[in-house]
């Protein structure tokens, strides 16, 4: 390791600094070595091949890259991979049950057609699962408000609300 910065004051790049990172991803220990500039998003996608997590803006403005870090929803594009060392990461690939059956939220999204192109969908679902765990899915308006960090350009919002409320109410939503 050299001085934390990879670039000198005049803007010329210094040597690439790579650091080992140990993550528990979807229950499995994973060790990787990453550029210090690498986001958790890029580490998941490129180093670990978990491409279910999507890059929509790389600026923390769209929610497509939402994952759970130690049980809380975070934007993986604004999280440096190195800073996640030793922590627990859950991605869309970790939602299915061990027997391969989908998570109730995944089922509800399919049933309510809460997706179209599907690109924002993993982030929507990761937020939706966290939302219920946070106790923030008590009404349609509450869901709308607390899901507003996850953009959907296809415009599936009303069906996303339906899907989340369906799961939150234990399937009582038609």
């Amino acid at each position, binding site marked *: 390791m050299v001085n934390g910065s990879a670039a000198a004051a005049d*803007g010329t790049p210094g040597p690439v600094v790579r650091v080992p990172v140990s993550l528990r991803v979807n229950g499995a220990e994973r060790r990787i070595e990453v550029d210090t500039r690498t986001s958790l998003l890029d580490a998941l996608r490129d180093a670990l091949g978990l*491409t279910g997590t999507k890059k*929509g803006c790389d600026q923390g*403005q769209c929610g497509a890259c939402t994952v759970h870090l130690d049980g809380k929803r975070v934007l993986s594009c604004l999280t440096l991979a190195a800073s996640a060392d030793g922590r627990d990461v859950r991605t869309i690939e970790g939602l299915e049950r061990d027997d391969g059956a989908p998570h109730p939220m995944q089922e509800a999204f399919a049933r309510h057609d809460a997706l*179209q192109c599907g*690109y924002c969908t993993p982030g929507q679902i990761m937020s939706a699962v966290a939302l219920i765990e946070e106790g923030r899915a008590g009404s349609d308006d509450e869901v709308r*408000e607390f899901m507003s960090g996850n953009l959907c350009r296809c415009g599936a919002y009303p069906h996303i609300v339906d899907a989340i409320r369906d799961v939150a109410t234990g399937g009582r939503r038609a």
Partner: protein
Amino acid sequence: MTPPTTTPTPPPTPARLGEGIDRVDARVKTAGRAAYPTDTAYPGLAHAVLVQSTIAAGRITALDAAAAEAAPGVLAVISHENVPALREAPDRSASLPPPPLRDDRIHHHGQTVAVVVADSFEQATEAARLVRVTYAADAVVADLDHPDAQHDHDPFGTDGGTGDVEKALEAAPVRVEGTYRTAANTNNPMGPFATVAHWEGDHLTVHDCTQGPSRTRADLAATLGVPPEAVRVLAPYLGGGFGAGLRTWGHTVLAAVAARQVGRPVKLVLTRKQMFTSVGHRPDTKQTVRIGATRDGRITALDHRAWQSLSMTDANMEPVSHTSQSSYASPNIATRDVQVRLNVPAPGSMRAPGDAQGNYALECALDELAHELGMDPLELRLRNYADEHPVTGQQWSCNDLRACYEAGAEMFGWERRDPEPRSTRRGRTLVGYGMAGTSFFFYQADCAARVTVGADGGAVVESSGMDIGTGTYTVMTQLGAELLGLPVGRVRMVMGDSSLPAAPSAGGSGLTAAMGTAVHNASRHLLQSFLDLVRDDAESPLRGVALDGVRAEDGRIVRTDDGRGEAYTAMLARHGRDRLSAEGSAEAPGQKGAVVPTGPYAAKFAEVHVDEDLGVIRVARLVTAAHCGRVLNEKTARSQLVGGTVGGIGMALLEETVTEPHTGRIANPTLGDYLVAVNADIPRLGVRFVGGPDPTNPNGTKGCGELGIPGTPAAIANAVFHATGVRVRRLPIRIEDVL
């Protein structure tokens, strides 16, 4: 590569056509297993990052790539100084923009001037910042009203009309006239456009964010000067496009160029900021609408003129005023389109191109006329209903707009509307009702498809076209199942691959009609192939039977006369075949006959709430009654309408790409600054389908993908007027407009 593992598996349950089954790709998409172009990985993959101009007009006087080339991991820096020759499109109006890195001239801010290729994404990103570009800047023309801007008149050859509008306007007892403006909007699909290019010898494989793999293949082959057979374009899934994927943009070409130059597969992903400058956008417009009418509300003259921005070097097919030729009965109609050359990034299609802007102006002008006449806006539209094409006199193939008005008004409770503006309030909230009609244009292009039934009795339907989220995988699966008499679970749809039978791009709400017809014809040909197989087969109850004497059901072909028949599997087994395939194609219907094919129709009714003190505008509810012909899947079609309406709400109240007039720079190129509708902006949205199947199409379909957009901004704008008494003639409508 990826397609075999990601082709969606249909649900096991049988389903009838039209039934709202879950989309067949819902499972892979909700599991995160759908492979988008940006998810593609190859061993030895290198990464490319674009460098874009920081002026909007002028020349590059020096491009110093030394520091970038010396940076760790950098493999190449490609600019106009060293790019290999790229060929110009023979037809500039087609899908291919001018090639990238063409010369030293700069025509807009954010024009690509170099591409940097490195071992890693981080290295390429850092090195791209080290490319030093020196410019000689010229004066910028970036404002639709700029006096020096060049105007291209009648660029689409669509100007026209009937009668003498000026004379009729002069004679009209009632006249309204308004100038309407719509802001530039940016498509902003959630998936940044990405290209992964891989050369194996002279063969190029491209994973690309495109809405038409066949077209991208042709464009790449033409630009690179290689035969089309040497190029394969794959895109089994696309993270949205909304028209941005209808052209083969420079970054796609450059990814292929870079991969060839460095001798490795290359991945190029646009940044969100580059998505504002590199893949088109909905051009801003200025429109004037003048309407003359009798006092009892008969329109006697309709004049619609539209000016829209265009880039300096490109073309863009975007008729704005044209639909006003076919929307309302009037003996005198004139429409004119003008494109204004500006130092702005190339505009392109975005969700109902042209109609989104043109319908807004027309339908607001109708509302102004209704107010002037003291007539209900819905009654005014019914009084001027176009029972035939107002200009050509052609009969409509299928037009149930009247049923849309009736159903929409009933769903909404339109009769409760107090006609007086600013008359309805709940506490400090002003309540407004507004409506608009939509006659969407008809579009269809040629398409091919192949249908195969295998020894297991299951079918595969193949066509190169795209499901961009519209539900094409699902409805074509359902259609194949119906036509071949199989359960939905026994049919697999394969798309998004240019090596499959050629399909047009997913756009213009035209793919379902085109591909559906091709699948229909392929299925008929396949049934004929089975009949041919057993033509002289003494063991077959179908021996010597003609196609019009059979139907397909339960995995069998059966005679309509006596019900005897046999299974596909039996015929294949007895003749030692492991499969039978047939292709089918569809040509776009002509538009010159006595009957003109019609696009879809809709009526939209909006309720807005405006905070009297703060001016905050909220859409409280919005209902759509739509005539889309036969609806193949009620669930995915509803999602199309709902999703388009969300886009229309954004266009009405939020979305504006802000270009600084003196620099040509886009001031808000992020999803934090360019506002799109979020979940909390969207109320419940009612959708009802009405009307009959369209006889133009063997499946009875019309399009519906873009129908959610036009009509929505006008209904909202008209509701804002009804709520506040303030007529805002500019989109998006903002708080300060109504205070």
